[in-house]
């Protein structure tokens, strides 16, 4: 079973070899080599269909960071197989199509590296069983999508589109990661299979009672919604249309944007049956469906139209998964099986969408490449020139609109059936709100019908306008038509033989989504095109009638004026980024003044607030002066001299006086050393004082005049308060330390210095023996300081030299 591991790694490894191949075979379009990758993978996966259909699941584990329970686990079951086949199958067609779409002058090496990176990442997402590894591959797909959107990175719009998509999808990814971590804390494992086993077998309290259940759900859904372009995170998808069209067909309609759908389906056994999950998934799905289809109608750029249409269709699938999750609320029983049909419809529509939307994107690519525009206002009457392309477009659009005899009709009817079932629910306050489901679904389907008609009729019928095109209309080369033709064939084939798909792929997938219900023998579905004249059929007929009316009679489109571009979510997003930058800049510059004085104020303020606050809060520290020796008059007078000198420094007008006053402080300290009978310290202090004072005086000659910066009185007062408080606090703590020694000091040990070191001078012994290492390092500190002074002098000399040269 290492096969699947290899299947994920194969495209990633192949990506490494792309540069070498392209160098070696410079005169062959490198896409031909790349084509072999999805073909091999597809054929490998196809072999698994029979055994998976028999209900088998393949699991294989390779340890990555076993200490933290991170394993590269592979799980091949019904659900992942569907996605695997879509990824590799559409992959083959897209690569083939791209060979004709991208000329050899383009940066093909990059293109195919990114594409292979994506393929590996996407296969990784659907085949891994470990949540963290899944996250890893999830981000790989976001990144490769980013790189592909910015494939023409010299265009500003490409860069902005790429940036937007990365910001939104990675933000969602990060939220999802936190959600996964929470799931891990709840379930104690990161293996999907184990978590699902845990929730489906354990009787009694489930994860739903855990306080982290709801936050985890919300965070994970954030990941799924951003990736699958659900409202209001959908704004990145239309911007992503800056990518070359094969990328749009592959990543941004057939595969990557369905990663969120995959995740929701995969996690349904864990979160499904919960009211919040139901409302979020189906509600957001329905809103996305409606908003996407409504916005699609107003687009004039065919690619943008398809992008919004994809948003809307993803919403449709999402809402179906939401409705299907209700089945888990009911547990085993006929009622639950009824709702699993919605999930079944979701999976079916997922496959259908990949086929008809892939075909449509390729059609738009053909038009765009052939005529130099994809603006519907400039297109028209192409049917005569491009009959094959037209046929494909017709099949694709009609399937999307939900018309027979195409696969979209089947899944659309199942969708209507599902929303009607949802209306009948009597849980989760659906008694009150349930009616919204069919209403929203039906309204959205009308818009879907309208934009589907726009694609076919406004592009291919009507008046041909050669003067508004860059190139003359002409049928595309055969190579470019193969891929969309294959997809269009599938669209029709799936209408006539849907149950082949159902039996071999959809049902095994259903069993993985509803492991509890799988034993019931209830999860068998047959898809029928005709099921009598019932509500769903009436809804479809209604859609066609109203849709045709709206398509013909355009005045209603004035409604769009209520939603001006300026206030679109897209613009709001851009504007908030701008505001964040401006605001941050303002805020940061306000406190990062660049003045040392301000920074000192911050430090001391922090000290005063935190230390002073603690001091007050914990109660004043005990200070006892009883055991202290009495203070003599000469000591008091020394202190008074020091205080006077210190106070005078800020007020003196010349440097010399300041230095001398500073010297007074130093000499007074030396006196204290003498009084406390530390003659060697006193000596050292005296030497240091003298040397520094002399050095200062020597430097004076070179220093500019001492100018005091005038400061307003308020600042001075504040500074005074800060300085005063800091001084008081330090003194109080020092006094408290002096009276609050908790332990015997280690110093008596050093009093035996004569015995220990043969040196009777305790200070010497400490400096040169007990703590000789410190002394050595301090010597080095002096050495470095010396080097510093030396280099600075050198710099000065050098600069002077340079200045002289310039003069």
């Amino acid at each position, binding site marked *: 079973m290492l096969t699947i591991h290899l299947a994920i790694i194969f495209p990633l490894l192949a990506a490494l070899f792309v540069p070498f191949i392209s160098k070696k075979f410079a005169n062959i379009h490198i896409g031909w080599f790349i084509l072999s990758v999805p073909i091999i993978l597809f054929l490998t996966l196809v072999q698994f269909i029979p055994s998976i259909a028999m209900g088998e699941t393949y699991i294989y584990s390779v340890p990555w*960071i076993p200490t933290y329970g991170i394993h590269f686990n592979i799980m091949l079951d019904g659900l992942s197989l569907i996605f695997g086949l879509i990824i590799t199958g559409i992959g083959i067609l897209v690569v083939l199509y791209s060979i004709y779409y991208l000329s050899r002058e383009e940066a093909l090496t990059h293109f195919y590296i990114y594409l292979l990176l994506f393929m590996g990442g996407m296969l990784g997402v659907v085949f891994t069983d470990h949540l963290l590894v899944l996250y890893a591959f999830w981000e790989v797909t976001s990144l490769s999508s980013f790189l592909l959107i910015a494939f023409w990175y010299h265009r500003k719009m490409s860069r902005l589109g790429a940036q937007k998509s990365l910001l939104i999808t990675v933000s969602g990814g990060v939220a999802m990661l936190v959600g996964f971590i929470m799931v891990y804390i709840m379930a104690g494992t990161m293996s999907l299979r184990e978590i699902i086993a845990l929730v489906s077998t354990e009787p009694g309290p489930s994860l739903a009672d855990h306080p982290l259940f709801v936050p985890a759900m919300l965070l994970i859904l954030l990941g799924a919604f951003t990736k699958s372009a659900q409202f209001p995170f959908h704004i990145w998808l239309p911007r992503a249309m800056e990518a070359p069209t094969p990328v749009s067909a592959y990543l941004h309609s057939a595969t990557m944007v369905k990663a969120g759908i995959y995740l929701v389906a995969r996690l349904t056994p864990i979160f499904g049956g919960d009211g919040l999950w139901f409302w979020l998934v189906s509600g957001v799905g329905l809103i996305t469906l409606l908003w996407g289809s409504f916005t699609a109608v107003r687009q004039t750029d065919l690619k943008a139209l398809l992008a919004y249409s994809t948003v809307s269709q993803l919403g449709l699938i999402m809402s179906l998964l939401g409705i299907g999750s209700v089945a888990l609320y009911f547990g085993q029983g006929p009622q639950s099986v009824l709702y699993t049909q919605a999930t079944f419809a979701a999976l079916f529509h997922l496959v259908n969408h990949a086929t008809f939307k892939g075909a449509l994107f390729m059609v738009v690519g053909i038009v765009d490449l052939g005529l130099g525009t994809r603006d519907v206002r400039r297109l028209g009457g192409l049917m005569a020139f491009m009959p094959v392309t037209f046929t494909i477009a017709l099949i694709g659009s009609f399937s999307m609109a939900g018309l027979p005899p195409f696969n979209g009709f089947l899944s659309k009817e199942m969708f209507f059936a599902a929303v009607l079932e949802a209306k009948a629910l009597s849980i989760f306050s659906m008694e009150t709100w349930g009616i919204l489901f069919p209403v929203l679904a039906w309204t959205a389907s009308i818009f879907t019908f309208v934009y589907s008609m726009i694609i076919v009729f406004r592009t291919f019928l009507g008046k041909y306008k050669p003067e508004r095109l860059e190139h003359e209309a002409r049928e595309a080369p055969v190579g470019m038509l193969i891929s969309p033709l294959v997809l269009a064939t599938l669209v029709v084939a799936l209408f006539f033989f849907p149950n082949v798909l159902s039996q071999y792929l959809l049902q095994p997938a259903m069993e993985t989504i509803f492991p509890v219900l799988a034993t019931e023998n209830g999860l068998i579905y047959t898809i029928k095109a005709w099921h009598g004249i019932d509500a769903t059929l009436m809804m479809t007929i209604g859609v066609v009638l109203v849709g045709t009316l709206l398509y013909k009679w355009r005045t209603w489109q004035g409604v769009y004026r209520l939603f001006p571009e300026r206030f679109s979510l897209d613009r709001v997003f851009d504007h908030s980024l701008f505001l964040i930058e401006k605001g941050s800049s303002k805020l940061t510059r306000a406190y990062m003044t660049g003045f040392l004085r301000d920074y000192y104020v911050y430090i001391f303020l922090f000290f005063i607030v935190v230390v002073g606050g603690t001091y007050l809060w914990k109660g004043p520290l005990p200070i006892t002066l009883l055991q202290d020796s009495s203070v003599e008059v000469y000591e008091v007078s020394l202190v008074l001299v020091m205080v006077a000198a210190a106070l005078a420094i800020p007020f003196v007008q010349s440097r010399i006086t300041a230095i001398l006053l500073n010297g007074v402080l130093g000499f007074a300290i030396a006196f204290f050393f003498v009084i406390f009978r530390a003659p060697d310290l006193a000596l050292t202090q005296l030497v240091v004082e003298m040397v520094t004072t002399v050095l200062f005086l020597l430097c004076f000659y070179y220093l500019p005049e001492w100018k005091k910066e005038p400061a307003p009185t308020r600042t001075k007062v504040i500074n005074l308060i800060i300085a005063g408080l800091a001084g008081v606090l330090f003194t109080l703590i020092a006094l408290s330390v002096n009276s609050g020694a908790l332990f015997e000091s280690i110093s008596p040990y050093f009093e035996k210095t004569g015995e220990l070191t043969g040196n009777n001078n305790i200070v010497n012994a400490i400096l040169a023996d007990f703590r000789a290492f410190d002394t050595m*390092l301090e010597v080095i500190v002096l050495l*470095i300081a010396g080097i510093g002074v030396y280099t600075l002098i050198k710099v000065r000399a050098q600069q002077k030299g340079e200045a002289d040269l310039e003069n």
Partner: protein
Amino acid sequence: MNNIIVLPMVIPLFTAIILIFFLSYVRVQYWLSLVALVITAALSGYILELIQREGILRLDFGQWPPPFGILFVADSFATILVLTASIVSALILIYAYYAGQSEHDHPRFFYSLILFLVAGVNGSFLTGDIFNLFVCFEVMLLASYVLITLGGRKRQLRESVKYIGINVLSSWLFLVAIAYLYGTAGTLNMAHLAERMAEAGPTPLITVISILFLIVFSLKAGLLLYFWLPGAYSAPPTAVAALFGALLTKVGIYALFRIFSLLFYHDPFVSETLLGIMAALTLIGGSIGAVAYNDIRHIVAYNVVIAVGFILVGLAIATPAAIEGSIYYLIHDMIAKGLLFLLAGTIVTLTGTGKIEEMSGLIRHYPLLGWLFFIVILSLVGIPPLSGFIGKVLLGQGAVQAEAYLLLGLAFLSSLFVLYSLLRIFLNCFWGETTISEGEETPLRKGLIIPSFILAMLMFGLGLGAELLAPYVKEAAETLLNPNLYIEPILYQ
């Protein structure tokens, strides 16, 4: 007792002094210092392995038994950092050598100073005596003072005055704090201090003293008190800035971890609440700062601040998973910040400007540089399988376990700001139309890109091979969380 553990400090120290005798032989200086750093790295790897076998190692200088003399203590936490610091500085040294010919033409004491800096850093990691920690800090700081002025451009001198001013103040605070601590506890040996602090419990006085230490190390680490950092880190030449970005704040972070897990963990107000608030504010301030500027050097410097907040979240939470996450992230951040500063500096050198709006399309001429920059962004954001991932996940786990949701949210949100701030550089500088015509670009020498390439490979290695480090990280976290594991081998063996 094992003499080997002094070598990671002494080898760079002595080499630095020897180099002074070869001032005019740049090549000799370069090779000697590179060899010294490589040996240091190899030795620290060996020490790390030795600790696994023999437990925590110590060396009493002059055979004076603890707590009376100075000693070095090598536990896994310290040694991992020594190892990483040595490797990263060796790579930055290579960059410096090749950059020298164009940038600042090898200031005379450059290599000595770098080795002094590394010696100070390694010494700070290894020492077991709090006053010796102060001295090692001084060695490191003095070297950094000189390095920041080296070259003597006006901007450097202006920033160095502030940098030195702040650090002199914080050193003074450090000294005062040590004096207070010694006055209260009567000892300087960290294990001994730990024992006495545990015995005394959180008296108000000890809490106040611990806050003083918090201020001191926060200043060094750039935790909340980071205002000096962006200026100082954006002024010096590339290699020096990279060393600063990779190593200096990490020493402060190390000290915070050591002191607040060993000595002052008794008062949750300081070790959890206060640290947590400061980490949170650092994350916010750093994130805001990172998107506020258009100058690469500033953006990069604020990214240092974000990482400081991120790592300290782990200490504030202090569950095993969070601490392990912090350690992983600390290692990752040394490598990634070194790389980020090298790349940012290279961009500035190549284009002659730091403003992102003044450059465009660099990837056409410097593809490797561009992709390395892209990789470092991903790694800093925590995209798997790069090195930032495992630390981030473990930290997240710890935060959820400790129910520290605010910190969790801020820590993960900050990575989006990292992404946005660095992505702006990538989009503006590397993509877009190139402004340099064919053949007119400044050539990028191999010597400048190879160290960055190796650093990027290390990030992949650390991410994919996180398992290899796991036993050491686990042990490091265990020692941090159980002070007795640290005290025992020092005072009772």
